[in-house]
């Protein structure tokens, strides 16, 4: 087993600029067979990891990474002992076959919601008006094929990406998108691929719409913004596929004057870890780096809800003022 790991066979996940295609199941099977044959030529023992996927694809079913973990745990206990190992192997398979995880039949649920001045239509289905979806918004499907086929129409002037579900709900309830013609979108935390996919589609379909992010003033909030903006490093080859030009609307350092001191909360250990990791990233632009430095120096963070100190209506006014002044970076 040691030899296997140290062998000269390096997988391609180190290469950043490859492309992972979206291809139909039959082609994935063909690529798997070719890859396995090549693989077998190098090693004497069979490659158990990939062998299950063709079966799943033939049935045209989908499997979650957790289910795959259990299957591998039982079929190949010598090779797999943790979810992390399975996830890394999947990334290697993605690199080997040069196709997306979704094409491999691996499903992830979508957490995203969208609301506002957007009309969505699946081919031959009813049009969904996202401004009439109530405060819960419209759930973004986890099916990337479906999202790809959606017909999109809008009269919005901005796209507002919201970090937290609670804030999204507030803005949707207040119908902010009628005061500032906009589309609201949230992944309820760390962005999942379906939400990023939809945002990416919106940015390509409506390239004149600035994409503005509303996140908490803390390293985790900035990390979420960066994930939408640059991609998810944990996704290996698929990292950069759905990156969008997102601007930081708020909360930012110059908003701290609006917040009473008691509303600040000390940074946790986890926040500091995230800050260090972000600082070391070569992608981080200078002005974001400065904001991060202030957070760490103060040792404090601020949630968007702190703005409610000025009343419930204040959040809408804050956003409107910032947009009108083009106060985003």
């Amino acid at each position, binding site marked *: 087993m040691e030899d296997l790991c140290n062998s000269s066979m390096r997988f391609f996940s180190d290469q950043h600029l490859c492309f992972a295609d979206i291809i139909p199941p039959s082609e994935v099977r063909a690529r798997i067979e070719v890859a396995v044959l090549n693989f077998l030529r190098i090693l004497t023992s069979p490659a158990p990891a990939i062998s299950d996927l063709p079966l799943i694809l033939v049935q045209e079913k989908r499997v979650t990474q957790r*289910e795959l973990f259990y299957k591998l745990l039982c079929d190949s206990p010598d090779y797999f002992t943790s979810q992390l190992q399975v996830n890394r192997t999947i990334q290697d398979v993605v690199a080997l076959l040069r196709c997306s995880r979704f094409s491999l039949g691996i499903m992830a649920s979508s957490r995203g919601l969208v609301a506002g001045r957007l009309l969505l239509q699946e081919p031959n289905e009813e049009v969904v008006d996202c401004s009439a979806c109530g405060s819960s918004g419209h759930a973004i499907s986890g099916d990337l094929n479906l999202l790809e086929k959606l017909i999109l129409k809008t009269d919005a002037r901005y796209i507002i990406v919201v970090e937290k579900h*609670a804030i999204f709900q507030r803005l949707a*309830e207040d119908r902010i998108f009628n005061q500032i013609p906009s589309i609201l979108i949230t992944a309820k935390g760390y962005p999942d691929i379906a939400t990023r996919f939809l945002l990416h589609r919106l940015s390509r379909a409506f390239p004149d719409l600035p994409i503005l992010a509303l996140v908490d003033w803390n390293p985790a909030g900035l990390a979420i913004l960066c994930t939408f903006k640059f991609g998810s490093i944990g996704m290996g080859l698929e990292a950069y596929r759905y990156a969008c030009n997102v601007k930081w609307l708020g909360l930012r350092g110059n908003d701290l004057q609006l917040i009473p001191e008691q*509303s600040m909360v000390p940074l946790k250990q986890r926040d500091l870890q995230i800050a260090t990791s972000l600082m070391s990233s070569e992608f981080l632009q200078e002005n974001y780096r400065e904001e991060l430095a202030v957070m760490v120096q103060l040792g404090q963070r601020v949630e968007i809800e702190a703005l409610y*100190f000025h009343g419930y209506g204040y959040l809408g006014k804050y956003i409107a003022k910032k947009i009108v002044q083009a106060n985003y970076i």
Partner: protein
Amino acid sequence: MEGNRGSSQRCALLRKIKEFTRAIVQDLSIGRSPIVLIDRFRVHCTNPQANCCCSSVLPNGKEILTLQRENHVHRLDVLLRVLLIVQQLLQENRHGSKRDIYYMHPSVFSEQSVVDRAINDICILMQCSRHNLNVVSVGNGLVMGWIRFLEGGRKFDCINRPNTAHPIPVQVEEVKDIVSVADYILVVEKESGKRLSRYPHQKQMAYDAKQLRCPEVCWLGVFPSDSEKYCLPQQCFLPLTAEDKKKAETMLNRCYLQREVPRWRLELELMLQRGVKFEIEALSVHSLSFLSKEYITSKIQGGVHI
């Protein structure tokens, strides 16, 4: 868009709030300290014989708050401030969360738990649920299957879109015209669509408990005893963490577990004894469709739920 039921409920509550406040002001104007009586509820205790009088419906004594005691003064101050915010929410028919309310007066409230207690007190005083006060949290639930309903003028048609999970609307009280042809309701723990949950444990939310708990819920699975019946491979078992064990022990101490669902108690004891747990996803080891085609079907048809 509002149902008439919602607005009349809100009006009734606003009247109650006015009455409550007027009584306090009246007392103060004649130099008398107002007395605020708050029912105490005990939903569960750790009585092993389970011959206690714990109930989520009947009160178990009263708390008496007066302005004559200093620690009560702060508590009443907090309660009245929260009440003012709640009144505003109801008047504007807006919804807010407990967190939002905290941030409105962070220096007075000093921490979230203070706000949470005030909201519970108000619920008990007004004899209503948190939802009635327009204090909500984010909606986490999803629903799919053979059901259709209306909420705030919007149609939720799960029957025509069988593969989509629809978010459950936040304003649950506005839901009406529920139409369903289902034989069963499956409550699932995880979004991956595959686990069943036990009925929610409410600690201090007495009136919420009345609307939220569902005593008819049966536990379909997964049981520790299922692992033998369905030939689950040894590798699928994960060891119980220290936190798991603590949680299990706390639950085993709860009086209602013995009184109302003794068979659940047995399964929990078995889990603790074996020291292992397993996830629903493990059932997919034999085949992806095993869970839906065989496990759930055989359990429902066999009436194997506790």
